[in-house]
């Protein structure tokens, strides 16, 4: 819903300004779907002198209309630069209904066209933020308008899923993926995530806190790493505080509802995931132990691969694929289930009779960050091939 509030009056000082506000003298316009009185901002043309308006709900332009021709011609003749323009017409962010005397005006470009002063902010006015536009007139009272574009009303955002989905995790669990139903806001993630021990008390500093939060491009999936300093052996954080997770104990990951979504609204509810902790897993996953259930030719049933242990959900979706007899990647969709131990690939077209390969990139990790063929930690004496040389593992199957 779009909601525009414009209050227009002559400015004789902030006190009168607030008084008028309190008395509800302002002109109130409701626009948008649902509760609008069929007006567009341009319908608010008035003939009794200059007035300020938003051109539309995108917040991309603010105009001063109703300026008489002589006044406009004088302004045009002054050939104002941007800095000078702000002494004539400026838009400010309001704080507590006020604009400070030394406040920097909103950045943007000005022009006079079609009998209007036209201001284009460098960035569109933001929904939910209150603005004050002031048109200063020589020897006359200023014209002041309050501009506001309401935030859209959207269903509250929820935590849809946390991966891994299982409720028993290795002591050296490396990360969680938090999946939200809608894009979230950035910059406050770690304030809203807690790990509670079985006594209900928060575990101290269990996670890697990064100033650049790890989101996917849509802002709907957040990657939460455990502090690797608490996982790796022989590092100070672990020696000082011990591992974040201890075998045999229970923990609860809590995502509190105070976390704002991208629309600036809190989550629908607090999310909790309880789990118990198993022994650390230091064994790299072995693709040879995967069980392949080859699909029949001329059908579109999925290829089903069963992993002996749960794999990293994001990497299993991205780093495992199918190639045909010519080595071309087969188009289709991947689904994970059974606590990320079952990988299913449904082809976009029916399987042809013949040979295929299941291909896994060796960067594929299990829950503890052990990748195919290499554990998370390696004895310093042991030679390990650099990853840049390792590539893929192929498992052939045939569709008959």
């Amino acid at each position, binding site marked *: 819903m779009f909601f525009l509030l414009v209050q227009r009056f002559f400015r004789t000082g902030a006190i009168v300004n607030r008084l008028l506000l309190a008395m509800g003298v302002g002109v109130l316009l409701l626009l948008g779907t649902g509760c609008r009185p069929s007006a567009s901002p341009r319908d608010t043309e008035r003939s009794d002198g200059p007035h300020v308006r938003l051109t539309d709900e995108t917040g991309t332009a603010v105009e001063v209309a109703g300026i008489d021709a002589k006044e406009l011609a004088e302004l045009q003749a002054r050939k104002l630069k941007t800095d000078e323009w702000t002494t004539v017409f400026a838009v400010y*962010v309001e*704080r507590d209904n006020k604009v400070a005397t030394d406040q*920097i*005006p*909103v*950045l943007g470009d000005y022009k006079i066209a079609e009998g209007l002063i036209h201001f284009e*902010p*460098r*960035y569109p*006015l*933001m929904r939910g933020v209150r*603005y004050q536009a002031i048109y200063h007139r020589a020897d006359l009272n200023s014209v002041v308008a309050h501009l506001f574009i309401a935030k859209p009303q959207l269903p509250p955002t929820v935590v849809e899923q946390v991966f891994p989905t299982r409720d028993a995790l290795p002591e050296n669990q490396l990360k969680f993926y938090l999946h939200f139903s809608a*894009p*979230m*806001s*950035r*910059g406050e993630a770690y304030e809203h995530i807690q790990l509670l021990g079985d006594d209900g008390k928060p575990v101290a500093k269990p996670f*890697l*806190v*990064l*100033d*650049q*939060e*790890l*989101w*996917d*491009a*849509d*802002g*709907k*999936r957040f*990657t939460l*790493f455990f*502090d*690797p*300093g608490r996982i*790796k*052996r*022989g*590092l*100070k*954080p672990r020696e*000082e*505080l011990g591992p974040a997770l201890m075998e045999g104990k229970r923990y609860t990951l809590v995502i509190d509802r105070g976390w704002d*979504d*991208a629309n600036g609204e809190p989550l629908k509810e607090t999310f909790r995931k309880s789990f118990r902790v198993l022994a650390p897993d230091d064994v790299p996953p072995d693709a040879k132990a995967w069980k392949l259930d080859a699909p029949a030719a001329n059908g579109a049933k999925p290829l089903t691969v069963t992993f002996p242990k749960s794999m*990293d959900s*994001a990497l299993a*979706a*991205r780093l495992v694929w199918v190639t045909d007899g010519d080595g071309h990647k087969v188009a289709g969709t991947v689904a994970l289930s059974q606590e990320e131990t079952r990988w299913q690939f449904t082809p976009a077209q029916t399987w042809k009779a013949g040979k295929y390969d299941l291909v896994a990139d060796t*960067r594929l990790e299990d829950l503890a*960050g052990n*990748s195919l063929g290499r554990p998370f*930690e390696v*004895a*310093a*004496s042991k030679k390990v091939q*650099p*990853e*840049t040389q390792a590539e893929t593992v192929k498992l052939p199957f045939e569709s008959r």
Partner: protein
Amino acid sequence: MLRMNRLVLSALAAGLLLAGGSRAADLSDSLKKGTPELKSVGALTFGPQGILFVADPQAAAIFAIDTDDHTPATGKDRPKVENVDEKIASLLGVEPKNLLFNDLAVNPISGNTYLSMSRGKGADAKPAIVKVDRTGKVTDFALKDVKFSMTKLANPTEDSKKRTDAITCIAFAKDKLYVAGLSNEEFASKLRTIPFPFTEADKGTSIEMYHGSHGQVETKSPIRTFIPIDLGGEANLLAAYTCTPLVRVPVSDLKPGSKVKGTTVAELGNHNVPLDMIVYKKDGKEYVLMANSAHGVMKIPTEGLDKAAGITERIKDTAGVKFETVKDLTGVVHLDSFDKEHALVLIKTKTGSYNLQTIELP
């Protein structure tokens, strides 16, 4: 997060003067005038000649932008801007709570500060670069009609909406840009070196980084922040990992496709999350100043770092080189060199507002 080796830069500048080459005829020749289409702005660092490198993590790209800010500083003004978040918010037309400070860099020529900001916190946040001059005046650095070039970091075959890289730090030394990143999926540690000027032919190389620990095991780990530094006459990177060791890596080891194991020279303990580092000299000695997430700023002498054998045994208390914590300096979230005597810091105050100011180098 400036991490340019000023010695190297000075040498480069001197070299250019000796060669009689005009300033503009050199590095900015590779830049073309236009409007860089940045999707996001993150880590910043200055190269020579007022060229600002800007990481765009959402586009997985690095932009080199000529700031056209080549006038050497005159006078002794140093910025002190209280509530800089409010001022920037006013300029960008939002409330302070809608802003994110991503990084800052001081132009070593002019002393002007450039801040990379996100205007808005949702997926549709807009990137903005804001300039604060030495008197504290806040203006925007318009990314329009500027000379720039761009290089992509992503492997095109890896295009995925889910997988992204955070670019944790960038630094320029000699003729190369170093880029450290962190994937939101695999626990990789890739350090990319990209020759500058950017060319189509050489997109740079990726190096896999390891470090050891007391327990005689080694692991890959993403680098959080680093600086180029000369140690014992050899070009090195001094890198702080996400799991807190401070590691020395000779630049000569950074060969394409190689696996590089750094030497752990200090362990910073549990309460230190390194954010930014600078190198400076005071009273004839060289130090690293490191800003940490919440627990003060650390001053680390570089003397002996080149010879430090590496921590491979369990040591009680502080391991490796000795450092001191500048205790009365808290809340520093970003740090850069300002001049020979001062550093520039962005401080988050207890009330949640931000101050931009200089501090005397300790």
